[in-house]
């Protein structure tokens, strides 16, 4: 039908009216869509399916209809039909990711590989979709595709980070399933990490289930490790070889001792005593890390033996400048509980606690030490420790005990025994007792039961029960020197000295070195000086070092003096001076800010700098830094970011595991440092930390609103303001403060002043010394070191050089030259700049690295090395100095970190 010209000239409407037939069809389809959606809303998938199918029949390419059919089939449990419908949806459709997500969920049971692919496709479009991350992790595990642990944990983290509270509450079964699958696939570590993350994030209303699974996994893993490394008793041949090695070490023949001990370790690697002795020798040889490793072996092999724990604890306390004090306390505390009668152990623990500022706990330990051993030797040592906390001698440790026995137990009983030990180690005494019942049932005649029983009783503080168990163990097998020693300790505690001495003799004759020291002490107490000296000599011959070494040396000096007096005089009583240890901790407490603290005790600067750096790094950089972005998200209606940040800042609801809690711990630590020097940290008067604490408190007041954001604009404004204050003002102020702590300018005047003081010392009087030749940079460098420490270091090195040069010059062996050169260098890899101080001389005596660092180091050099290490520096020896050092024969080189000028540049820079 043609159009008339008039009609053709009429303007065509933008949207022509549809023909009547189409309108009716469209109305039908609109009604069908509405019916389908209504059916879905009321939970009637059958009706929804019928309606969506009607739409789809009319419009086969309609994505919404295909998705609706898929959803309805899925809701009716018709997986195959649902997947057929969903697969018709084109990849570029707007709803494709949602459809893939549904398909992936449907595939999860029957075809997890396909599900994993689909979840990955969802994540390409929606990278932050938490359900897809969790789904992919589950699918990969079900498919046994052995996903990379990192990738799996990343998916889990992405879920935990962003999932809704409802999703988290419902996720427990998924985590249970995933952890089981990981364990089936031998990925226990990943399973533990997964459970730990879930527990920390508070997954599930029944957290106890995941926590329980995590605990069980850890206990089983620890027990398996112990079972793999179960201790074996030392054979007679091994014991003889071990004693030869010890004797060689005591005689200073370290190489021979090493050769003999290596052979014993190779032959009997599961002997705790051998491992322990290996640690002793490694420490003698200067291998700290090796000694730690050896003692960890010994602890793993014989966890109920306190000796190795004590050595480990002392090592951790002494060699890591306070960084591993908590670990040291854990080991030493366990050791004191297992051996409550060891005064030296209590004293060691007290020292570490003092350094940590735990004065009350230290006091308790000192009282225990004095109560255990009130005689002059220990009391004097205790007093000296207390008075000289910051100038302690090198670390001793405890002498080795006898080997534990665990042979003769059936495999199942041995496994239960290891589980008992794990629970004991964790302080879960009830569980340990329950597990011990299993051991007793499986192996009623096994002697090791008694020792475990005693260990549990000691941990519970039930000394009579422990004594009974030790006695039972010794009745079952008298050849257990460590049990005899432990029983003797308990008897001494309750004053049964005569019986204790009998057990000590038994232990000593069976190879327990520590028993010799105890016998010497008892003999000295009853006035039998010759017997005491004999036992002490035996102790020193067998224990080149040990936890009791220092009191033993003190006792020997005391005995020598008493014997000399006996020989020289016929009259005159012996004077024992008991010095009380009380009163020292009642320091005067006064308010102070950081500036005043450092002014009073400059040696606190490194520890303060470490603590402030931790606050700056852990609290501000990694956490409060998110606040502005959280504010941004809130302003755009997203409350999840606030909840996410709240979790990091405040920990789980009702708990105290968050960053704010850690910050308060750091502030408490500063107060502890202040109390150590008789002050009390007073935040309001501190210009940097005062405002920071106020801001953190203001942030803490927002915990509730952040967890459940309501008035989002107001919360966003508060967070934005706090973000600026914390992340700009406080952050920069802290950085400035940290950089200012503990730096000095190395000037000629400073060096000349030290040199002048050294030359004025009486020991250098009369020596014809050359002048000190200085070679310094034009601009004096800034060094990260405390002034007093650097002066001590320089004085020591200049004194040594002067003595050597003075003697050589007097004897005509060298012209006599003394020099000091300062240079700067930067590490080619890290870019860190150092200041090198070379102390040069021309004395012909050789100086080697081992003479500086080894056990042969003089006490002065030992202190120098400690001081330098405290400032992250190093000390080396150049036996042939470079060509610029013409005429010099050697140089001792101190490397210290160069402090940078305090220039703060915002932003970054481009390398050229």
């Amino acid at each position: 039908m043609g159009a008339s010209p008039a009609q053709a000239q009429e303007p065509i409407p933008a949207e022509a009216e549809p023909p009547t037939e189409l309108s009716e069809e469209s109305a039908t389809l609109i009604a069908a869509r509405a019916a389908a959606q209504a059916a879905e809303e009321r939970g009637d998938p059958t009706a929804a399916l019928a309606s969506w199918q009607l739409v789809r029949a009319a419009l086969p390419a309609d994505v919404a209809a295909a998705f609706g059919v898929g959803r309805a089939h899925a809701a009716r449990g018709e997986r195959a039909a649902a997947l057929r419908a969903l697969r018709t949806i084109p990849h570029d459709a707007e709803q494709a990711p949602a459809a893939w997500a549904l398909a992936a969920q449907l595939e999860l049971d029957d075809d997890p590989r396909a599900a994993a692919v689909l979840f990955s496709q969802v994540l390409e479009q929606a990278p932050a979709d938490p359900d897809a991350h969790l789904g992919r992790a589950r699918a990969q595990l079900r498919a046994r595709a052995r996903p990379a642990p990192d990738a799996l944990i990343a998916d889990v983290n992405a879920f935990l980070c962003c999932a809704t509270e409802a999703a988290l509450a419902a996720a427990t079964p998924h985590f249970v399933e995933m952890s089981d699958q990981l364990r089936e696939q031998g990925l226990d570590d990943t399973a533990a990490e997964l459970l730990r993350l879930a527990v920390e994030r508070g997954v599930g209303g029944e957290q106890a289930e995941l926590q329980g699974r995590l605990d069980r996994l850890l206990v089983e893993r620890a027990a398996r490790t112990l079972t793999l490394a179960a201790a074996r008793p030392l054979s007679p041949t091994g014991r003889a070889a071990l004693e030869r090695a010890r004797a060689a070490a005591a005689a200073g023949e370290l190489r021979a001792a090493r050769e003999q001990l290596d052979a014993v370790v190779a032959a009997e690697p599961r002997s705790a005593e051998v491992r322990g002795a290996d640690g002793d020798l490694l420490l003698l040889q200067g291998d700290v890390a090796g000694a730690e490793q050896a003692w960890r072996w010994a602890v793993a092999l014989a966890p109920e033996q306190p000796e190795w724990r004590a050595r480990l604890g002392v090592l951790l306390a002494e060699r890591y400048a306070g960084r591993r004090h908590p670990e040291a306390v854990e080991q030493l505390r366990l050791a004191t509980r297992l051996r409550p009668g060891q005064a030296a152990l209590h004293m060691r623990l007290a020292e570490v606690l003092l350094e940590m500022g735990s004065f009350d706990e230290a006091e308790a330990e000192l009282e225990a030490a004095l109560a255990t051993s009130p005689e002059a030797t220990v009391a004097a040592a205790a007093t000296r420790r207390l008075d000289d906390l910051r100038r302690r001698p090198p670390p001793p440790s405890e002498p080795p005990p006898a080997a534990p026995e665990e042979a003769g137990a059936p495999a199942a009983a041995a496994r239960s025994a290891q589980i008992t030990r794990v629970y004991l180690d964790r302080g879960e005494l009830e569980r340990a007792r329950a597990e011990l019942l299993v051991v007793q049932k499986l192996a009623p005649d096994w002697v090791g039961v008694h020792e475990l029983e005693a260990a549990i009783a000691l941990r519970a503080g039930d000394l009579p029960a422990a004594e009974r168990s030790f006695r039972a163990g010794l009745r079952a097998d008298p050849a257990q020197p460590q049990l005899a020693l432990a029983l003797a300790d308990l008897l001494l505690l309750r004053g049964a000295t005569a019986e204790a001495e009998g057990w000590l003799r038994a232990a000593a004759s069976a190879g327990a070195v520590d028993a010799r020291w105890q016998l010497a002490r008892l003999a000295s107490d009853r006035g039998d000086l010759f017997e005491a000296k004999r036992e002490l000599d035996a102790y020193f011959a067998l224990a080149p070092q040990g936890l009791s070494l220092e009191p033993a040396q003190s006792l020997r000096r005391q005995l020598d003096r008493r014997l000399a007096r006996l020989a020289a005089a016929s009259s005159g009583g012996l004077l024992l001076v008991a010095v009380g240890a009380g009163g020292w901790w009642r320091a005067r407490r006064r308010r102070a800010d950081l500036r005043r603290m450092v002014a009073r005790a400059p040696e606190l600067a490194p520890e303060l700098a470490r603590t402030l750096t931790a606050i700056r790094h852990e609290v501000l950089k990694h956490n409060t830094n998110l606040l502005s972005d959280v504010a941004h998200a809130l302003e755009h209606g997203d409350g999840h970011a606030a909840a996410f940040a709240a979790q990091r800042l405040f920990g789980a609801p009702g708990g105290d595991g968050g960053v704010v809690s850690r910050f308060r711990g750091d502030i408490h630590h500063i107060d502890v440092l202040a109390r150590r020097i008789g002050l009390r940290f007073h935040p309001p008067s501190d210009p940097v930390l005062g405002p920071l604490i106020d801001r953190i408190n203001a942030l803490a007041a927002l915990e509730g609103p952040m967890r459940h954001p309501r008035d989002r604009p107001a919360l966003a404004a508060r967070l934005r303001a706090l973000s600026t204050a914390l992340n700009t003002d406080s952050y920069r102020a802290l950085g400035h403060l940290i950089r200012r702590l503990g730096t000095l300018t190395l000037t000629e005047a400073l060096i000349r002043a030290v040199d002048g003081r050294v030359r004025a010392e009486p020991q250098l009087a009369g020596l014809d010394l050359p002048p000190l030749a200085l070679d310094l940079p034009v601009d004096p460098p800034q060094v990260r070191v405390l002034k007093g420490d650097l002066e001590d270091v320089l004085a020591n090195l200049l004194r040594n050089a002067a003595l050597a040069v003075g003697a050589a010059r007097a004897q005509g062996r060298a012209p006599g030259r003394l020099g000091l050169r300062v240079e700067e260098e930067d590490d080619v890899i890290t870019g860190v700049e150092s200041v090198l101080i070379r102390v040069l001389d021309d004395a012909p005596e050789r100086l080697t690295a081992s003479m500086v660092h080894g056990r042969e180091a003089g006490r002065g050099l030992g202190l120098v090395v400690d001081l330098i290490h405290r400032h992250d520096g190093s000390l080396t020896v150049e036996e042939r100095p470079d060509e610029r050092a013409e005429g010099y024969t050697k140089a001792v080189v101190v490397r210290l970190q160069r402090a940078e000028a305090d220039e703060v540049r915002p932003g970054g820079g481009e390398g050229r």
Partner: protein
Amino acid sequence: MTGTRARVLVIEDGHEYTTTLGRFLAPALDLQRAGDGPSALERLAQERWDVIFLDMRFDRASVLLGDLDELSARFAGDVGRARRTLEDNQGAYILAALREAGCTVPVVMSYDFDGEPRRFQNLARRYGPLRYLTDTAGPAEIRAALLDAARGEPA
């Protein structure tokens, strides 16, 4: 840089940056993670990247780049201290290693060089193109820095 999303290799021993940045920056950037130096070098050799985001401290990585024996000798046989030094400066070790391997991809380091400008200059001179982000940088600033670096723009 190809397409609309820059490919970023995040080298960190934990998952903090990938998790946080993944949440805030995922639409603009394709973030992939390497947990230690060797795996980073492997990924850099196998794939093409627009920019590297590198953390400095690696105290959770099981594998560290660097000569532990040499450092132990410097610290009087103290292996623990040597390892801590490697951990504290591992980012610099990784940076040196990837440049030595011929990788010229721009690097953005997450480290507070504000207090150590000379150290940064030393590193940038040897191992550029290099820029850093102050510790106060939030996700938006990180995104801008990564995109600028990927485009080769000066800091």
